[in-house]
């Protein structure tokens, strides 16, 4: 019954979407603007209908309605309620449904926020979103239909993939990822809308899309960090990033989106890079679809490639259509969109932004080609190869280290041009911090050039960004006699975009510091211990107390209880690494236990146990500063949120360069 309702809702919504797509050009070409209400109506109606289908799926999951194919595939009566609800995105069909719902939500929000804007940009953007929606609508009634009736109805199901029901972060990471990925359709829609409405020669589409991209970027940043955390807590090897194809898939659009967030500033301030910015919108969107294709087609072996099937061909076809259509539209209008180079001096902020975009693009291409190379090698040379971490580390890390350095240079330089004398005054002092940080790294035992440079540049950029707050605060204190806290709050409030951006920089630097420290100074040891025996790693000692087993409804748990010993051999805590055997799978899910402090993590994973519990083999890893990565993720999100809710200074309604001039004068302080 539920399946029938949901299925009908999806069919009707697909028809609505197709109607919305067809009516839009008719309304615009026929100069019947009142008909555009039908486009917007289609967007809202679709949102309601997909919401019905999604709620129906959640109800079916929670009530264990095994007559619905998706529930029969991922449901189980023994799975705890929370994991039953979140299995909505635990497998292919459900995740496509959830994707469609998030896309419908974004489309409805875009129409809601922008529908009063005159001109054809918003209608065409809405139409573009409907075209993307139609693709997912076709998947949902075709190859990824989650509501296929099952007969006879099974009494119980296998439950979700065991890796996905082992940790609470599975309730957080996928929704964030979808909010990030799907949100990147919106800037793409504005880019395509700009071309279709011949508004490509103005910057309005960029003004309109910036906040949507910033929000999506914040979601994607948080999703990547949450994914790293999940991998750290569940996979049991004590790492958070392995350049796995699916990790790369989430990183690729993040890189182009980051490039966009910088190039759009150059566009707004200096009226250059318009075509490039447009291309970044298109690439970011294509990379999100491509990432989904990698995850969902099973074309590359990966720890995350959960599904196989013919859905890959649909994605390939869609990617091809999007690429060809975008190429034709962008190339056909490039002369119209293009801006003239308008560089100020060499020592200027736009130069740094150009370099930033160049390095981000280089990292993106490196990761993209490294990810795809096994396919290329197999197709062209018939050999099976894999491209491992060394390639990515050797190729991408130098560029990323350079980007950290630029993060300190950009904020210090003004737009336009400056004298070398002035530039030197701003750029040289933070070098002291770089020397200090580099020296600390060397004393602590770092030997790799890029590792030492990473520490040094984190110091450089941290001072570069923090100094901007300090200078601004000092100016306010002198001018208005405010105390530190009030000066800081008003400073940020006065230019949220700018100071939100610097805060996001500091978040990235915290992540970079955590990554650099934990990968450079990681120590690990493995040992088989009998109760009472202990193991010491980098000054941290753990002693095995007991090995035990416990039965839970959906799984059997084997664990080791270990005492953590302090310097004087007193017990300062206990740690319980476990191994969870889910009934549906032969393979245990590692469940390491982590003891965190501001200085770093003590990470213990149970590797093996003797069948009557006589001994246990454990791996103990000491990783400095890992929690800084998670905290940095939070700071990034806060920075992005501050930057998003700035005042409506740049009114998008007035076209052409007028808003630019106004913005430039309003910010004349810089």
């Amino acid at each position: 019954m539920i399946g029938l309702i949901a299925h009908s809702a999806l069919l009707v919504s697909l028809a609505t979407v197709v109607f919305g797509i067809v009516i839009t050009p008719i309304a615009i070409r026929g100069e019947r603007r009142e008909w555009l209400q039908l486009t917007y109506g289609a967007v809202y109606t679709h949102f309601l209908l997909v919401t019905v289908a999604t709620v129906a799926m959640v109800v079916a999951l929670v009530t264990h309605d095994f007559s619905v194919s998706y529930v029969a595939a991922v449901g189980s009566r023994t799975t705890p309620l929370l994991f039953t609800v979140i299995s909505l995105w635990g497998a292919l069909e459900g995740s496509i449904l959830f994707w469609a719902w998030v896309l419908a939500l974004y489309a409805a929000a875009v129409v809601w926020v922008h529908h009063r804007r005159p001109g054809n940009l918003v209608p065409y953007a809405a139409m573009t979103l409907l075209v993307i929606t139609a693709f997912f609508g076709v998947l949902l009634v075709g190859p990824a239909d989650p509501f296929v009736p099952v007969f006879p109805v099974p009494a119980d199901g296998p439950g979700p993939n065991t890796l996905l029901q082992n940790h609470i972060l599975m309730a957080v990471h996928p929704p964030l990822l979808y909010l990030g990925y799907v949100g990147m359709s919106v800037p793409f829609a504005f880019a395509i809308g700009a071309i279709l409405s011949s508004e490509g020669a103005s910057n309005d589409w960029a003004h309109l899309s910036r906040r949507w991209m910033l929000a999506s970027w914040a979601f994607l940043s948080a999703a990547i960090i949450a994914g790293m955390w999940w991998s750290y807590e569940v996979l049991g090897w004590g790492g958070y990033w392995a350049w796995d194809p699916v990790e790369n898939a989430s990183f690729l659009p993040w890189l182009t989106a980051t490039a966009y967030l910088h190039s759009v500033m150059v566009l707004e301030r200096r009226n250059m890079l318009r075509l490039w910015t447009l291309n970044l919108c298109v690439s970011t969107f294509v990379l999100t679809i491509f990432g989904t294709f990698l995850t969902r087609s099973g074309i590359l072996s990966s720890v995350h490639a959960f599904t196989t099937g013919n859905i890959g061909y649909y994605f390939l076809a869609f990617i091809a259509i999007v690429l060809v259509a975008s190429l034709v539209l962008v190339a056909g209008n490039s002369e119209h969109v293009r801006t003239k180079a308008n560089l100020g001096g060499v020592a200027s902020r736009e130069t740094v932004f150009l370099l930033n975009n160049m390095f981000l693009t280089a990292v993106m291409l490196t990761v993209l080609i490294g990810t795809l190379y096994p396919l290329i090698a197999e197709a062209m040379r018939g050999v099976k190869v894999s491209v491992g971490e060394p390639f990515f580390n050797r190729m991408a890390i130098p560029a990323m280290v350079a980007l950290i350095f630029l993060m300190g240079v950009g904020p210090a330089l003004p737009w336009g041009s400056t004298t070398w004398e002035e530039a030197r005054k701003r750029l040289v002092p933070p070098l002291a911090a770089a020397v200090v940080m580099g020296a600390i790294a060397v004393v602590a035992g770092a030997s790799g050039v890029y590792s030492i440079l990473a520490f040094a540049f984190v110091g450089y950029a941290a001072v570069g960004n923090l100094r901007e707050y300090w200078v601004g605060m000092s100016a306010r204190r002198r001018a208005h006699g405010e105390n530190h806290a009030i000066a800081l709050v008003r400073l940020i409030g006065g230019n949220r975009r700018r100071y939100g951006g610097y805060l996001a920089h500091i978040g990235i630097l915290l992540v970079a510091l955590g990554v650099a420290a934990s990968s450079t100074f990681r120590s690990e040891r493995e040992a088989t211990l009998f109760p009472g025996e202990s193991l010491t790693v980098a000054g941290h000692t753990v002693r095995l107390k007991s090995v035990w087993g416990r039965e839970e409804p959906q799984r059997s748990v084997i664990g080791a209880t270990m005492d953590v010993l302090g310097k004087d051999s007193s017990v300062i805590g206990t740690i319980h690494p476990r191994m969870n055997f889910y009934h549906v799978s032969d393979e245990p899910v590692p469940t390491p236990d982590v003891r965190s402090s501001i200085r770093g993590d003590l990470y213990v994973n149970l590797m093996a146990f003797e069948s009557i519990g006589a001994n246990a083999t454990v791996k103990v890893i000491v990783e400095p500063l890992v929690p800084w990565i998670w905290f940095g993720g939070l700071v990034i999100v806060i920075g992005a949120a501050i930057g998003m809710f700035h005042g409506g200074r740049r009114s998008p309604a007035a076209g052409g360069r007028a808003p630019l001039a106004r913005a430039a004068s309003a910010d004349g302080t810089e």
Partner: protein
Amino acid sequence: MKRAWVLGGAAVIIAVFAWLLFGGLEKNMVFFLTPQELLAKGTEVVGVPVRLGGQVKPGSVVWDAKALDLRFTVTDGAGEMPVRSTGAPPQMFRDGMGVIVEGRVGAGGVFDATGLMVKHSNEYQAPKPGEEAHEKYKTLIQQSAP
């Protein structure tokens, strides 16, 4: 004229980038080989990182828990390769199971593993009675029950 300079500069940058990229790929790619293919390469692969894929030869697994020394043989039916690994085997490591071993052939013709993955494929054989997963932890759970 200026445009030509810009285009020329861009072409040089792209060429250098592509050269670095594909050079890096050639140097860092890891071949996936079966024991037969690995043996056929002879001394050519000594010291070169490869991924060895095959099945664990029944009866070949020897694990010294205290020394964390694991030895087994990987076979593809046509060739056999002895493997040595330090560290605990994956919990469900069993005779006949598909594995991918990352590492390199040492001087003595033994494969030194740096990574060990259990492979989920059609080659997977269902465990025989008495070898099922729960057999391994059943005793411990019964023993721990209050």
